């Protein structure tokens, strides 16, 4: 089983927190689509033996595509790759793109999951993040998608915003819960270099939320979503009725994936590769049939460390059986020793030979992963 990721690098405006590769210049959109199709075609042999369990349109803003363009891409993939019968096909969408026309059009595609970039139901938050929609559109877009018959909907929320109070966040969570979506991804704001928020932070225009407050918001999120029947299956991801994001879950389970489009990453157990981070260079490279990606070959140490950061994020955790089967003695021993400290401090739990983060451990998961890392 494997996944396919398609990066649509266009956005009408840039959000202040976002560090994904994107451009607001739509001039090359047609060229991009034809280059993308070439890449999809060229790389088909890489997954010849594998059944595709998920396809994910990410960005950028994939909802800037026309229905016909989406259908074209999917038809090509269907023709060249072997899709599983219950393939999950997700489209990331901006609330303001979810017009009645677009939604009814979507029904003609094989898209069966929507990930809506709601981010907040608060006008002030939305404005500060430079989102294009307002709180009203945030609500109506989700309802409209549901009414259009899309049954698997995920929404994104951001918390830990500068000046965001616990009340603001509670209000956001309650609004989200009132909508009966199947899946919520709730991200604490991260200040990425190159974003407007990062510059604001560095120049003192905004201040990071104090640790205590952001921790309170996180805790509130966990308890409120749990009450409402959501299962936290990854640090920032919550699902009802086991409607996990198959595609994202595959990343954490280190299943193979192909990433198409500029900046997209691919993984095949032995290597990780990433396409160039520039639309222009991507188009040139595809045009001239030259190299459009860089890659790293994963050593055993890399693979072990990858296993730490991916699996510990999930509710399924690190399996000592998997460790023994896949890594040499020195890694297994090292892990046991390091993990012991965190079992003692109750940051880790051990059940059925699986190590998982306790709630307290979740809050400092990066630190724990770092400790578990093997660095020669």
């Amino acid at each position, binding site marked *: 089983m494997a996944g396919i990721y398609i990066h649509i690098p266009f956005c009408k405006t840039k959000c202040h927190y976002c560090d994904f590769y994107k451009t607001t210049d739509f001039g090359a959109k047609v060229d991009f689509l034809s280059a993308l199709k070439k890449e999809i075609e060229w790389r088909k042999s890489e997954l010849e033996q594998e059944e595709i369990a998920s396809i994910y349109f990410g960005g950028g803003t994939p909802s800037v595509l026309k229905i016909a363009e989406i259908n074209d891409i999917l038809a090509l993939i269907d023709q060249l790759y072997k899709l599983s019968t219950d393939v999950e096909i997700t489209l990331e969408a901006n609330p303001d793109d979810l017009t009645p026309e677009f939604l009814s059009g979507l029904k003609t595609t094989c898209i069966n999951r929507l990930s809506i970039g709601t981010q907040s139901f608060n006008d002030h938050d939305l404005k500060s993040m430079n989102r294009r929609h307002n709180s009203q559109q945030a609500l109506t877009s989700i309802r409209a998608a549901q009414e259009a018959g899309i049954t698997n909907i995920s929404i994104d929320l951001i918390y830990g915003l500068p000046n965001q109070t616990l009340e603001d966040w509670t209000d956001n969570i309650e609004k989200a819960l009132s909508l009966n979506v199947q899946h919520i991804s709730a991200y604490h704001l991260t200040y990425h270099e190159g974003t407007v928020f990062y510059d604001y932070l560095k120049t003192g225009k905004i201040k990071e939320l104090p640790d205590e407050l952001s*921790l309170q918001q996180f805790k509130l999120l966990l308890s409120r979503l749990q009450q409402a029947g959501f299962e936290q299956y990854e*640090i920032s991801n919550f699902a009802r009725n086991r409607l996990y994001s198959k595609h994202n879950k595959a*990343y954490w389970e280190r299943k193979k994936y192909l*990433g198409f489009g500029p900046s997209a990453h691919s993984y095949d157990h032995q290597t990780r590769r*990433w396409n160039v981070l520039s639309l222009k260079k991507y188009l040139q490279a595809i045009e001239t049939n030259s190299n459009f990606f860089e890659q790293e070959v994963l050593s055993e140490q890399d693979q072990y460390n990858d296993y730490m950061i991916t699996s510990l994020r999930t509710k399924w955790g690190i399996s000592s059986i998997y460790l023994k089967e896949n890594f040499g003695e020195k890694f297994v021993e090292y892990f046991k020793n390091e993990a012991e400290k965190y079992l003692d401090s109750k940051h880790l739990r051990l059940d059925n030979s699986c190590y998982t983060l306790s709630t307290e451990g979740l*809050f400092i998961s*990066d630190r724990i992963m770092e400790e578990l890392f093997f660095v020669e």
Partner: protein
Amino acid sequence: MNNIRNFCIIAHIDHGKSTLADRLLEVTKTVSGREMKAQVLDSMDLEQERGITIKSHAIQMDYVQDGEKYVLNLIDTPGHVDFSYEVSRSIAACEGALLIIDATQGIQAQTISNLYLAIEHDLEIIPILNKMDLPNAMPEVVEDQIIDLIGCKREEIIRASGKTGEGVDEILRNIVEIVPAPKGNPEEPLQALIFDSVFNSFRGVIAYFKIVNGTINQGDSVKFVNTKKEYNADEIGVLRLGMEKRKTLSTGDVGYIISGIKTAKEVKVGDTITHKERPTLAISGFEEVKPMVFAGVYPIDAEDYEDLRAAMEKLQLNDASLTFEPESSAALGFGFRCGFLGMLHMEIIQERLDREFDMNVITTVPNVSYKVHTTSGETITVYNPSGLPASTTIDDIEEPYIRSQIITKSDFIGSVMTLCLEKRGTLIKQDYLTAERAELTFDLPLGEIVFDFYDKLKSISKGYASFDYHITGYKPAKLVRLDILLNGEMVDALSSLIHFDNAYPMGRRMCEKLKELIPRQQFDIAIQAAIGAKIIARETVKAVRKDVTAKCYGGDISRKRKLLEKQKKGKKRMKQVGNVEVPQNAFLAVLKLD
């Protein structure tokens, strides 16, 4: 002998000594254009980067004037206060000195003290205004300073530029006409002054000397008067761009000797070379160079202890002024207590350990040596705060003092005075060199200088003040040991000996600084300063409550792995003290107090 001219250059760092020296080499065709690597005299990488000459060298030039052939020996001098003894020996080997002053900056403290040394040794001084090509040169003002200082005539000052070559011919003419030929008698017993030495991994130690009296031949049996060691002069020669062998060298000549000496320690700058069979007395002015600043040097990784020892031994082969002995610290494990000539010397050693030996070390807060008189009447020398006996057994403590010259723009006199008084200085005298520039003489405890004196002096004077000093002796002081505790555990490597009056503010600032430098960990960390059992300051580093990455999808995994690996490597470079991880720079925290 009448056609030999031995001279040195007196200049402040950055006043263009090396560039001007390069010009002399070029014009006398000592170095061809092809060989002309900028600043030939500074051959060590580190020297070129820092733009200063750490070890002195010498170079011989041929020069023809009015049909007469002359041999000019330029003896290069190190330009830093830490090496003032070496400077004095180089000066003693010369009959003349080029006094190079930057026309844009004027006279600096360093220049003055070296100039006085030169005058003491009866050297003829040739004043030169350098960097005349720069638009901000102020020749008249700086000439006034020079005239005030050495009492020369304005027309005797040569205006020059190492960059354009202006004035270089005139300098050469002056060297021949003004600098006297060396005196001495070739027939007398051999008496040669060692003014420097270098270590060569194939040839052993090469000593540089100037013959004051007598003659030396290759193969002679020689004796070093002060060390009383005897050698065979396997090879002698002169220093051109490289070494050139000679059979005989005579009075007035500057040359080198190779005699199978293995370690730099055997060759002491200032020592006298004489013949075994026909010995003479030592040339006066010899001193054993004593380290003045001490610090612990510890490997980050305990396993590297033996490698560190090997590296130190190698460094000592060509740097006899470095001393070290094993030391252990509860916080840092096994390492060495090292003695340095001064702060710059310490920095250089640290950098050489890193560059030449790839040794990652922690250097502790430097201190000076103290004389402790105990109640039982003993006197012990303490090189390390932890070596201080229990306070009940101490009768009194003495610390080394220096006399320092500071030259500053008059605008900054107030702040310089405040700084020196803060550092327990006593003003000895204050002279105005010109209306805008003053020379302050202060007596200061050396222990105050090794903290953050240089940096502060530079910053309060906007980089203009210059500083020079020499040791004057020991004076009693009311000193206490300030200890630092992390989570209740004393960190011996952070202890310092300081004056009682400064202990409280110092303790507070240390705690504040450490709070900045110690990263947050999984638990609260109490940082305390104490004198004896008494806690005088406290800060807390709050535990990390939240350390979690919001998203980690397909494109984030590589980056995140690399980030965490890097952090982990960073932590490996930290030192575990009790349960607290302390970064290397925290051990020098006391040096960086605001």
